[in-house]
């Protein structure tokens, strides 16, 4: 019988094996890195209609989160402030600033400013701000260092796995309730403090499905 395959065919099984190992690893890495919310979601930074700088207001002027987001301790939502809140100061300060034109327009017409939502959860996930801040989950734990953001962006993946990281081990993240709005809070011994706070606040973070999906 004549030779059917060329000599290089001897190498085919070995090359296929090596090739498939490389291919499988590439696919795994690609999905693991590029399909994760850490890649697809983190860093979402839409341009807002009014170039409001958290860096100036929080970082430089030291305003508390609750000055504007007033409902956060009582409501499911941390509300976006009304134009009134802006005008409390800006009817006196920078009254003819170009950047504030839209705020003044809204103030006159009564139409609210259409801000873009940055942190989005799927509709099938229930989240309640009040439930979290009242037991000592800091604003920055989820939203990052807002005091350093010129334009607000999504700092954390907000994936279910990320939620569960804290729900499973809340002692690694909780802080005293009076420190919730503090930016850059570092406890001396987080685990020790965390365990005390978990006991004190009676924190029993649920990890069953219908806690968030119902």
């Amino acid at each position, binding site marked *: 019988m004549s030779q*059917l395959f060329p000599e290089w065919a001897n190498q085919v099984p070995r090359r296929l094996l090596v090739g498939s190992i490389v291919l499988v690893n590439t696919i795994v890495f690609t999905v693991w890195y590029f399909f994760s919310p*850490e890649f697809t979601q983190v860093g979402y930074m839409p341009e807002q209609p009014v170039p409001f700088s958290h860096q100036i207001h929080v970082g430089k002027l030291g305003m508390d989160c609750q000055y504007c987001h007033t409902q956060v301790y009582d409501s499911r939502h941390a509300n976006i402030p009304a134009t009134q809140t802006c005008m409390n100061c800006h009817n006196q300060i920078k009254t003819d600033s170009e950047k504030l034109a839209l705020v003044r327009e809204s103030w006159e017409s009564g139409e609210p400013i259409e801000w873009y939502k940055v942190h989005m959860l799927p509709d099938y996930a229930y989240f309640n701000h009040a439930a979290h801040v009242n037991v000592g989950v800091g604003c920055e734990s989820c939203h990052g260092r807002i005091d350093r953001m010129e334009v607000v962006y999504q700092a954390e993946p907000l994936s*279910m796995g990320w939620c569960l990281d804290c729900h499973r081990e809340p002692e690694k993240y909780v802080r005293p309730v009076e420190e919730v709005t503090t930016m850059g809070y570092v406890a001396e011994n987080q685990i020790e403090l965390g365990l005390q706070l978990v006991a004190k606040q009676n924190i029993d973070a649920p990890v069953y499905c219908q806690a968030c999906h119902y």
Partner: protein
Amino acid sequence: MSKTYEYVPEPALVKGNHDFGSITRLVTDINLRPTPKAWYIVFGISNLLLFVLLASIGYLIWQGTGIWGLNSTVNWGWAIINFVWWVGIGHAGTLISAILFLFRQNWRTAINRFAEAMTIFAVMCAGIFPAIHVGRIWVIYWVFPVPNSMAMWPNFNSPLLWDVFAISTYLTVSFLFWYVGLVPDFATLRDRIKSKFGKIAYGIAALGWRGSNRHWWNYEKAYMILAGLATPLVLSVHTIVSFDFAVSVIPGWHTTIFPPYFVAGAVFSGFAMVLTLMIIVRKIYGLEEIMTDDHIEKMNIIILVTGSMVGFAYLMEFFIAWYGQVEYEKAIFILRATGPYAWAYWIMITCNVLSPQFFWSKKLRRHVGFTFFISIVVNIGMWFERFVITVTSLSTDFLPSSWGYYSPTMWDMLTYLGTFGLFGTFFLLFLRFLPMIAVAELKGAMPQADPHNYNDEGEYAPHEEIIPEPKRSY
């Protein structure tokens, strides 16, 4: 001193005056000949049915499981019935190829390739149903433990998850076993086929097989190891399928007899399916000298044994329901035999328990037409067994106010019908392009393979059957 017994030698495995060469020609010429017209016709019908399957799956994905006849107490309908039915059919292939191999039952060589192919295609048909019945098929990967950003992990307490592993392991091992057995025969086809394309295609599949001593040594070892791996799978796969029911707390399902009873039923239906296909194929391709009436008789004995085991299990279920004195358990079994689905129950009893009893008669065991008929009846019965188990227990559950009657819709039926198209398409491709009998193995079981059957000149001279006299006097 008279003989106290009569010695009956095993019938020859291959009838007719065949040698190695004629066996090779008989089997592999089927693959080398031009495709017969009838093949195209049957293949066309199968393709049509396959299209029906794909269309009904497409509509299911588009529309959701509401197109099926499921309702609020019967949340598991034809999908699970068809799944268990197809998986069960697969079991005969593994039993023939692995267990009979380890028990040195040489008659398996005539049917093992054929039955293994049936296993693989049947498991493929089965695998479709659990995948599509979840409703949101696009997240079906959640059944696998894939680390993900949702921290979603399958529930390892659930028999449905065990099923995923059982079936995927089973399919993998069955396929490897089948393929390893095919390698020497691929080489035969490579060497015999004329076309260049055929030579290359079979040559790639043959993995460079040259039939050297070393090749045979590796082959035998690999085959033995795979037989050892596949043997526990015959028992474990259908055991785990039965756990889908038995691990729940539904009356009529929550019984310890389920695993052995399911395995027996699986082998029962699988052998029936092998017989159905074999009787047609051996007729069309003229393979009666290899797949002989002796094979049919042996398989009928297995059908008789497993059928009686299944019948015994039905009786035991009733006995335990009475003996256990659990209100709901008793009620469900009375309802099975007399309730709204009594018709299905008695079809099941007739087909599964009564019909194989005909095989006590040697004449009927060897009757080809009758065997063909019973083999179909058995598979109808085994489908109804799964129907009875699934539907009766669910439709009449703990709360009489929620009792209801389940009937399938057109889409249930079309999907089931379509799986025959999938099975037929693959099986016909198998018949056309692969040797349907394990040529190399069959030769090993022939008297010509025994070196004692050659005289000093190296000529074939089979020795006389020596019938030993009993040594002890009575």
